[in-house]
């Protein structure tokens, strides 16, 4: 084993960039780390190189613990995205830099430089200055320079990112040849999946600092284990539905492992090239999704990309490609050989290959602090967790003088009161309540935060809610369920699309919650008298068809009122709703949370649970 990363984590400020990342790289292999920008892939590479150090975990290179060893001692070669050629040195001087530092004698230096120039296709260019070279040639110099001191490990950070497509192809072949010839263990980081397929002996797919899947390119493509790997690598169609009945149970054999419980959901994934179109209903045993209509076709050389509208099957929904707002039918992506003529618009849609993925389990973070009002929020957490089959984490901040054990016992007792002491993980970090919560939600992937509205006596005088809550509202990047009043099961949800911007996120979240707990939804849009509310009407119409397409019972209501807050609160108590969903303002826009903000006003006066949906970063 050449390189071993053992549960490595790295934070920048509050953000967990690399999250308990584990990886083993074999001798002489070329491993590609593939991820979108911000997935932490470059940080991992820089930690292996020693250009930055991990906060936790271990890095072992060739059997030696190198976690905190200085970069000079690691014996690695590194190629940067922007070449980083020494601009005041000739090509040859650049390449021999590492040898000179190591005190290698001049004759053998010259010999080695000649070898490397030959190997990287730069023969005869040794005396050029870097500025006389093209980008591709400069990157070849960088590669030769990184290899000159015969490193045991070669690390490349998006090495071809700044080059144009044709030169990229040439350089990939050069890299592949050189790497195989020298048999040097190599890690290459990229966001380009074509590059990953072409170069990688193995590919590791990263998302938010975590390894989502690793394996041989073909295995990863054919049998992805997670929906992220499936859609990021190659793309395709992802449908979600119940495992035991409806579509998947009836027309596709769902493997036993996905049918553990009644109502268990499963995700069906298939590549565009496995979507088949026939004029007559096929009788060859292929599962048929229905009769579809081609709504778009693009000629792309050897293949033709099509988008097919297929009527939605009850109980199932489309996950990827992400449905447009207001879209009721499924729109699936397909690829056909381009020499196959398309004769009509209507075809029977069936599948030649498919795979099943377990749906991701939702993760709830419950905040429990001394100021929490009773344990209604814990009851809600227990009920919600059971309903949506989610995993629960309870967070309680701990003051400096409090011992971990004592607080843990307290929390366990409280959990036992609401029959929640089973499979719940408990986190007890030190610090102030708001900061602790904000840090934890940024550091991990949660689907929902749950906390109780703080007690009246700690009210922040002019806002009617505490400063801590305002702080959390401003900084939370995850939907926030604020519990007030007595707990009762959620059966009726009021979605207030007047709070803040009419958001699509609150509709999507309402759908997510309602579908999982089987609640009915009422859409409420409040507009001021004598104003044009065409936009509002259209939004509500789109929202109801989106919800209806997910088999959610939905009605909509448009109210004319000069006071939005009064109208919302009045409607909530008239209809005796169990949950209000409102738009918040998401991270990094604290200036929006002024006292006159509708969401804040409602929160101040309400005595029912409110779910605040952060707006996505712009």
């Amino acid at each position, binding site marked *: 084993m050449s390189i071993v990363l053992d549960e490595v984590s790295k934070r920048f400020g509050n953000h967990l960039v690399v999250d308990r990342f584990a990886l083993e790289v074999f001798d002489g292999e070329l491993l590609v780390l593939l991820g979108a920008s911000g997935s932490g892939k470059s940080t991992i590479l820089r930690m292996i*190189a020693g250009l930055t150090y991990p906060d936790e975990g271990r890095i072992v290179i060739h059997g030696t613990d190198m976690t905190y060893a200085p*970069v000079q001692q690691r014996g690695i070669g590194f190629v940067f995205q922007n070449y*980083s050629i020494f601009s005041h040195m000739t090509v040859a001087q650049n390449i021999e830099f590492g040898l000179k*530092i190591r005190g290698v004698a001049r004759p053998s230096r010259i010999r080695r430089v000649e070898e490397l120039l030959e190997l990287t296709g730069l023969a005869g260019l040794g005396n050029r200055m870097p500025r006389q070279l093209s980008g591709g040639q400069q990157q070849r110099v960088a590669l030769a320079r990184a290899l000159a001191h015969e490193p045991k490990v070669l690390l490349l950070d998006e090495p071809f990112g700044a080059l144009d497509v044709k030169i990229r192809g040439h350089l990939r072949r050069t890299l592949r040849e050189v790497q195989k010839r020298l048999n040097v263990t190599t890690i290459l980081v990229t966001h380009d999946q074509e590059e990953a397929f072409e170069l990688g002996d193995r590919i590791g797919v990263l998302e938010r600092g975590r390894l989502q899947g690793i394996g041989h390119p073909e295995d990863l493509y054919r049998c992805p284990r997670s929906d992220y790997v499936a859609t990021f690598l190659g793309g395709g169609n992802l449908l979600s539905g119940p495992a035991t009945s409806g579509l998947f149970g009836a027309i596709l054999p769902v493997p036993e492992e996905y049918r553990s419980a009644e109502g268990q959901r499963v995700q069906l994934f298939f590549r565009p090239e496995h979507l088949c179109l026939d004029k007559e209903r096929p009788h060859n045993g292929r599962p048929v999704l229905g009769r579809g209509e081609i709504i778009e076709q693009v000629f792309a050389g050897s293949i033709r990309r099509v988008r097919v509208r297929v009527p939605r099957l009850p109980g199932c929904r489309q996950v990827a490609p992400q449905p447009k707002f207001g879209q009721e039918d499924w729109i699936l992506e397909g690829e056909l050989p381009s020499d196959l003529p398309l004769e009509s618009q209507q075809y029977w849609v069936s599948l030649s290959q498919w795979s099943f993925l377990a749906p991701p389990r939702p993760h709830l973070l419950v905040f429990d602090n001394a100021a929490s009002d009773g344990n209604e929020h814990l009851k809600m957490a227990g009920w919600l967790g059971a309903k949506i089959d989610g995993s629960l984490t309870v967070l309680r901040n701990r003051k400096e003088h409090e011992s971990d054990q004592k607080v843990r016992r307290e929390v366990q007792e409280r959990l036992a009161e609401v029959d929640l002491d089973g499979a719940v993980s408990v986190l007890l970090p030190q610090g102030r309540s708001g900061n602790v919560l904000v840090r934890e939600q940024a550091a991990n992937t949660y689907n929902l935060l749950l906390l109780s509205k703080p007690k009246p006596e700690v009210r922040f005088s002019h806002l009617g809610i505490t400063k801590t809550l305002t702080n959390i509202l401003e900084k939370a990047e995850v939907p926030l369920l604020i519990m007030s009043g007595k707990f009762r099961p959620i059966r009726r949800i009021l979605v207030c699309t007047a709070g803040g911007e009419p958001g699509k996120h609150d509709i999507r979240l309402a759908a997510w919650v309602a579908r999982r707990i089987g609640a009915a939804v009422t859409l409420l849009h409040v507009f001021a008298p004598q104003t044009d509310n065409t936009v509002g009407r259209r939004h509500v119409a789109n929202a109801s068809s989106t919800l209806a397409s997910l088999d959610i019972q939905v009605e909509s209501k448009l109210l004319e009122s000069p006071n939005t807050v009064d109208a919302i609160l009045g409607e909530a108590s008239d209809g005796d709703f169990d949950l209000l969903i409102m738009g918040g303002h998401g991270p990094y826009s604290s200036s929006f949370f002024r006292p006159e903000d509708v969401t804040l006003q409602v929160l101040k006066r309400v005595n029912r649970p409110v779910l605040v949906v952060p707006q996505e970063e712009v």
Partner: protein
Amino acid sequence: MRIADRELGRPHFSGRGFKLPVVIVLTYTALLVVAPLLAISWGAFSSGVSATLREITSPDALHALKLTLLLAISASGLNAVLGLVTAWVLVRHRFRGRALLNALVDLPFAISPVIAGLMLILLFGREGWLRFLPDALGIQIVFALPGMLLATVFVSLPFVVREVMPVLSHLGTEQEEAAHTLGATGWQTFRKVTLPAIRWGLLYGISLTFARALGEFGAVLVVSGGVSGMTETATLFIFRSMDDRNYAAAYSMALVLAVVSFGTLILIELLKKRTGQRR
């Protein structure tokens, strides 16, 4: 064609727009720069070449010239090192008070050199706050060479900092990181990668420092006391000669200074071209 030329930023010759500004610039350059230079040369040689040579080789004049060159060269050397370190700290480090330090660097440009000299006297003079320092070291600062050097260093402090900072931040840290991955230590990296990459900017800053130090008058006048043959620099020599109505000596010295400054200026222009190419 014309559109293309404009896009490339080439001069375009059309109508009166071409001539008028050029004429204005040429006129005031002639009046303000060339005419004084000619006047100085004429003044220097008006009483004959031999008189000029005699004046310039007098012991006082030679001493003043030597002192000026000594001051200018030492100030350039000191500011090269201090300026480089300051620029490095300002570009590469983020710390409390960085903005303040960044502003303070320009202070010598903002306040009059006379005031700078006065400050040194207040610090190191007979009643000064830091008078124990020269006493402890057994040297004299005010009315002596160390004080004059301090004054010169102070007034020419910003040049190296301001010239090196943009070059250093343009360079970034990637080349240095590359050197580290190739096994170079911090010092090796600085010597073999960073310094060569910023050398033209650094040299340009040093030349500006030198030119400024050469012509410094106010701060040095206040600090030195201007004792001829002792603490009298070239500019002070000119000032005293004018006072003594010894115009031949004043003009001769002025011409020498002008020639050295002009030489430095040409050097600066050459360096500027090199730095321009490098970027």
